[in-house]
């Protein structure tokens, strides 16, 4: 395969994500170790200092959000599967595609390099609020480390915009004969909507990054007030700006970003549930509509990150309503998933289990969304571990379950080998248990008042220690569970290696799937919509099979 072949590029993206997810997980485990045993010195390194803890927080969030949850579902599996699923042999711009992938790799290298510059990695979190992020005086890591962060994310934004334009063009222009919009699988609708959001969101992020760079090095004041005293030094700059402008621009990007991470997984879940339930997706057209509606509403809700940031309280009310509204298309998706499998006696293959896990985690993480959408409740919950629990369940864990589902489901297609089902099932049960054991208790520590990004929960002078001491037992439980969750990935790792070393054995369409990516290579013409399964649970009419379409069983 050539270096610009979409499968090569896709595997390149997956490789970036694998490196990133291993690295990001190690960072999170170090955070948990430090929170539970702050006096424990890390071998070779020694004690983890407060600024080093914050560097772990910042890099964990940045790496996981950008290089795992954005790269793997959208660019990785998008490139591997998207062309085949729409009856095309390639992506629209192969060279641009390969360039984006290498830019993303350089971005990751740049980001990780921030650990090794003088004063280390930045400490301002993945949201990089100024003035903390605008001046090297504000803390260690905010000098060279922060510049590396800015460069890395700027490269990433350029690569993601190019990659999204590529995906959009491919879907609009390169669909094979007979692949009408209504016949597109829901995964493609997920990629399409996420690509639309990427173009809008990443261009705004790039502009904000450029402005922050100017504030840091060219004495502008986009995000700085006329007078700002940091570390006993009055900043020398022109203009009278506001940090709130950064919050607006960042979250105008940041909220669509979380939908970019989860929309492909939502589409895949619908298709995999239908595949193994041997049914049509319940309310297919409504699922297309809700995908687009979630994308559209996703760009109208950024203010819910700012309820207590200094926004006009009337604006808080408006953003509360748009945020509540997004719960409805999301609930419609859950209803469709539940109805699709209702009394279907599905085949419990590993990809099916992970799709069901996605549904469970999406429900659990999603139900706290409407709570956080109410400004008066967010006043109490904002920046506590309740929020950490919410987004780790709905975005991180559901997102990862989508990725694992995709890996088990498409592995035979890409590598002509099937991952061990026995190990896969162990992997699923251990992972879902670990995910809930780690993130459910965080709701309670958050409700007890534990703020995010505290490098230490005990030994703080005054009544704060008394307040935070109520969470001590749960903290230990969370740390142990996090290690359990990480170890639960070992059977998966073994499964991958053992399967790759084994000879190729897999049949052409092992899951009896109906969508185009499973068609024999020379068939690119689509003859019908997806999910035409017979009521006997065995027979099916794939999209590539010519001839009449048998009447489908009633929904």
């Amino acid at each position: 395969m050539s270096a610009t072949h979409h499968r090569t590029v896709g595997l390149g993206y997956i490789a970036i994500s694998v490196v990133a997810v291993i690295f990001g997980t190690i960072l999170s485990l170090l955070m948990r170790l430090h929170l539970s045993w702050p006096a424990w010195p890390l071998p070779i390194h020694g004690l983890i200092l407060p600024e080093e803890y914050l560097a772990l927080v910042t890099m964990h969030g940045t790496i996981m959000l950008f290089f795992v949850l954005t790269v793997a579902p959208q660019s990785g599996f998008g490139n591997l599967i998207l062309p085949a699923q729409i009856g095309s042999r390639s992506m629209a711009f192969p060279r641009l595609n390969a360039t984006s992938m290498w830019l993303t790799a350089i971005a990751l290298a740049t980001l990780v390099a921030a650990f090794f510059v003088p004063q280390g990695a930045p400490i301002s979190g993945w949201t990089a609020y100024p003035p903390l992020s605008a001046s090297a005086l504000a803390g260690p890591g905010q000098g060279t480390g922060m510049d590396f962060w800015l460069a890395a994310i700027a490269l990433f934004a350029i690569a993601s915009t190019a990659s999204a334009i590529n995906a959009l063009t491919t879907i609009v222009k390169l669909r094979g004969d007979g692949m009408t919009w209504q016949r597109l699988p829901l995964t493609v609708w997920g990629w399409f909507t996420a690509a639309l959001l990427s173009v809008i969101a990443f261009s705004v992020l790039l502009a904000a990054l450029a402005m922050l760079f100017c504030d840091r090095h060219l004495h502008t004041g986009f995000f700085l007030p006329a007078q700002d005293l940091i570390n006993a030094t009055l900043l020398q700059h022109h203009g009278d700006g506001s940090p709130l402008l950064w919050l607006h621009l960042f979250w105008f990007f940041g909220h669509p970003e979380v939908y970019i991470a989860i929309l492909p997984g939502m589409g895949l879940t619908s298709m995999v549930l239908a595949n193994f339930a041997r049914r049509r997706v319940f309310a297919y057209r409504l699922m297309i509509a809700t995908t687009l509606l979630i994308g559209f509403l996703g760009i109208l809700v950024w203010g819910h990150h700012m309820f207590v940031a200094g926004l006009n309280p009337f604006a808080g009310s408006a953003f509360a309503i748009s945020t509540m509204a997004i719960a409805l298309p999301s609930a419609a998706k859950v209803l469709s998933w539940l109805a699709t499998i209702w009394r279907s006696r599905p085949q419990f293959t590993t990809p099916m289990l992970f799709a069901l896990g996605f549904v469970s985690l999406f429900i659990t993480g999603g139900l706290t969304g409407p709570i956080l959408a109410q400004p008066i409740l967010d006043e109490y919950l904002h920046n506590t571990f309740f929020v950490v629990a919410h987004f780790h369940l709905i975005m991180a864990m559901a997102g990862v379950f989508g990725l694992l589902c995709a890996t088990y489901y498409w592995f035979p297609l890409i590598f002509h080998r099937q991952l061990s089902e026995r190990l896969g099932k162990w992997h699923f049960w251990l992972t879902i248990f670990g995910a809930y054991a780690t993130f459910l208790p965080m709701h309670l520590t958050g409700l007890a008042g534990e703020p995010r990004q505290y490098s230490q929960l005990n030994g703080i002078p005054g009544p704060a220690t008394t307040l935070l001491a109520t969470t001590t037992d749960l903290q230990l439980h969370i740390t142990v569970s996090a290690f359990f969750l990480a170890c639960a990935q070992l059977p998966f790792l073994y499964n991958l290696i053992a399967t790759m070393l084994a000879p190729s054995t897999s049949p052409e369409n092992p899951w009896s799937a109906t969508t185009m990516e499973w068609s024999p290579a020379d068939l690119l013409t689509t003859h019908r919509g997806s999910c035409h399964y017979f009521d006997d649970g065995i027979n099916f009419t794939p999209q590539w099979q010519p001839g009449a379409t048998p009447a489908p069983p009633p929904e």
Partner: protein
Amino acid sequence: MLSAQANPGQHFWHLPIDASKHGPALDQHLLLNLWIALALLTLAHIILFAGLAFRRRASRPIHKATLEYLPLAALTILFAFLSVRAQHLWATQRYTDASLEAMQVEVTGMQFAWYFRYPGHDATFGNTKLSLVAPGEGNPLGIDPHDPHSADDIVTSQLVLPAGREVDLTLLSQDVIHGFSVPEMRLKQNALPGQTAHIHFTPTVPGTYAILCTQLCGLGHYRMTATMLILPLDKFAIWLQHHEIRP
């Protein structure tokens, strides 16, 4: 005044004690939300497991519209109901300013400390300038000594307030964004450099409470805490007398 302690959900959900006037209504709404979320979580998983466990039927006679739109309509009504209740509480707290009788205290955040300023006898804060800030010389807020209003300003590192009287806090920051948060008062608002924010509330239960910083502000973020001391009215009067500066 202590009615919030009687709520059994408070313990189950690990909520700390509730010592402000607006707190019990907020807690009640929060607990309602949490119980509803838990109920919906359970219901959805029962449907999920039942759907997987039950024997396959020959056909599904249930009408699609009923299955899809009826639950959606129910959820819409539920979310609308919760929204209206929440907006009402939000409006009560935020849409109006503090009453004119409210006690004025200025809160200033800086890496990594909180300072509190009371206006003194003249009920007016003296001017401050960032160029005058000199913590080593006892002027961490940069109060202008030439302003006649400055002389009687009281600056403390502990926020001492009387129980039962409304307080209007003016939030400021000298450097980066800080988050002023008092979990036991169910209170949170960011302090931004270059702009002021106001938040008003009435503490009800005397005691000692933690003030936390809830917006990542640098390496000492975790230790940017302070104490809020709520005193009965008579004891507060004595405290004030001790701290008052006679011109």
